[in-house]
């Protein structure tokens, strides 16, 4: 297991470096020369070649590309993401404030997603091809067909304006307030189809295995067949959905947080994208990617623990 874990972690590092490189290169090419842009914005008359050259030197922009990249990576490792063009404030502290908010919502959503999804998927597999199965898979597919930016306003209108079940829920009051209910619901429900599918398909595959037939033939009560033989082996592949779920939540947070005016990571990303605020876009893209890579790493490690065969591939 240890060699497998080390191998996985070592694979993780080059991916992160590649992501850092791609992000920087695109952020470098995208906005053009920052000095030129700034000078033109402040006072176009200053835009003589000499001043620009001097400013480039002051900001270290005349150094080779790779040196600048290394400098940028070093700063990011120290939590310095540069300044936002739009608000003129440091991005690092903003992220330190905003990311935990999104993480709380995501974690709460994930717990509901995982437990609910696995239970519903198990039920669907055991009642395969009955109306229960069709209902569970069908409704999860149905919900996942609504893009989040459609679902969020629909929910706000229905629950708050029409049914008046909750007071106005825009904004952020901490995870244990009524305002967090709808966002958490959205974080979990929209991703349900993947754990349900993984659990259902995994269990159905195991249900047709010979050793299950043997267990039944030797007269084991159905309850024990399911608990001891089917569930244990059939749910291993469900772990795979972890990576998918984190990826879905990172993108989902963009729409959910902007719909509910939650000052989290996703809202920041949307603000950056709409304002063409390149430093913010680079920071949020990078963080999203690192979160997904980490989730995939954890998935691989968990798989290695649960299914020893994986370690020897």
């Amino acid at each position: 297991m240890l060699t497998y874990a080390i191998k996985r972690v070592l694979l993780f590092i080059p991916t992160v470096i590649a992501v850092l490189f791609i992000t920087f290169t695109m952020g470098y090419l995208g906005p053009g020369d920052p000095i030129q842009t700034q000078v033109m914005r402040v006072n176009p008359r200053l835009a003589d070649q000499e001043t620009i050259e001097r400013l480039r030197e002051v900001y270290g922009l005349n150094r080779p590309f790779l040196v600048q990249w290394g400098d940028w990576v070093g700063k990011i490792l120290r939590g310095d993401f540069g300044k936002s063009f739009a608000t003129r404030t440091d991005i690092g502290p903003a992220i330190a404030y905003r990311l935990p908010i999104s993480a709380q919502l995501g974690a709460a959503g994930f717990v509901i997603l995982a437990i609910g999804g696995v239970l519903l998927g198990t039920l669907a597999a055991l009642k395969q091809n009955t109306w229960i199965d069709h209902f569970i898979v069908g409704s999860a597919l149905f919900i996942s067909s609504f893009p989040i930016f459609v679902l969020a306003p629909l929910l706000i209108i229905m629950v708050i304006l029409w049914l008046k079940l909750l007071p106005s829920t825009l904004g952020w009051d901490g995870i244990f307030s009524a305002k967090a209910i709808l966002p958490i619901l959205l974080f979990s429900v929209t991703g349900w189809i993947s754990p349900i599918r993984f659990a259902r398909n995994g269990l159905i595959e195991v249900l047709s295995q010979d050793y299950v037939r043997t267990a039944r033939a030797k007269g084991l009560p159905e309850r024990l067949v399911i608990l001891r033989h089917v569930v244990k082996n059939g749910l291993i592949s469900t772990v795979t959905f972890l990576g998918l779920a984190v990826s879905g939540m990172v993108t989902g947070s963009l729409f959910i947080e902007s719909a509910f005016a939650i000052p989290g990571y996703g809202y920041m990303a949307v603000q950056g994208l709409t304002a063409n605020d390149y430093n913010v876009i680079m920071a949020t893209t990078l963080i999203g990617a690192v979160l997904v890579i980490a989730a995939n790493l954890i998935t691989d490690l968990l798989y290695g623990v649960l299914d020893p065969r994986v370690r020897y591939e």
Partner: protein
Amino acid sequence: MTQAFGSPALLDEMMPPRNLWLDAWERFQRNRMAVIGLAIAVLTLLLGIFGPALAPYDYKYIDMRALAEPPSLEHPMGTDEIGRDMLSRILQGARTAVMVAVFVTVINTVLGLALGALSAYAGGIVDMVIMRIADILMAFPGLLLVAFVNATMKRPVGLVSLWLYDLTGIAFFENTLVINYLIVLWAISLIGWPGLARLVRGQILSLREREFIKAQEAMGSPGWRIMALHLIPNAIGPLIVAVSGSIGGAMVLESSLSYLGLGIQPPGASWGRMIVENMLQWSVYPHLVAMPSLVLAICVFGFNFLGDGLNDALNPRQIRS
């Protein structure tokens, strides 16, 4: 793809009964939701092709005497805030959605097949490079990467195309609207191929080890024959499922980008754009948000159920209990 399933009678004539496709079609038919999904998918494609021609009005035409009207005989879906006919705009949006979906799916499939097969056959360093690139692209959350590419590449690509225009004088390079569309389409395609390439590679690698392929090789069958008669028919099921699933995904991505203001620019009609344009007036004019939302949801829903049905029909091992 839909054609192969849409005409069982034709298949019957062409092939002897009780083959893979007939079996799959029978299983598919038994799944009512899948058949509904197929109907919606076909209808969506037809609307994307013929819709704008059927539209009662020009989708850009502004009628100042009919602002934000509820559905009526004259305007079956009402008009939007500046007096444009909703039905015409939704039909135009269908063309955008279908165009994006078809374009993206074709690029994805071609890239996925080519790179996946290349990876499996070449092995070694080629395989490693392609799969690492795929890994890295898959490490970004899809929408974020597309949005990032869109936001950062517009200016450089615009500069390059202007330079090309100066150099060659071809009018195409000056048309920023088309260039904009192309950046959106390529950005969405960029994130789709790695999954398919991995799938194709995995299928080929595992099939090559199977006895019936080894037997063919041992009997001296030429490579193309093994490929055409054994490798492709056996690998195509999961591929069809993945491709049909990616169509709905591409539609959602395009709408999401347009919703964020990064995709199709006005006055072009996109369902996502229509939703966000009318979002602020939701409580006053609910139909303006409801129409594009529902149309988008129904289309994606159709493609999802189609994909699900195809999965059950083409991967029969999963449903045998």
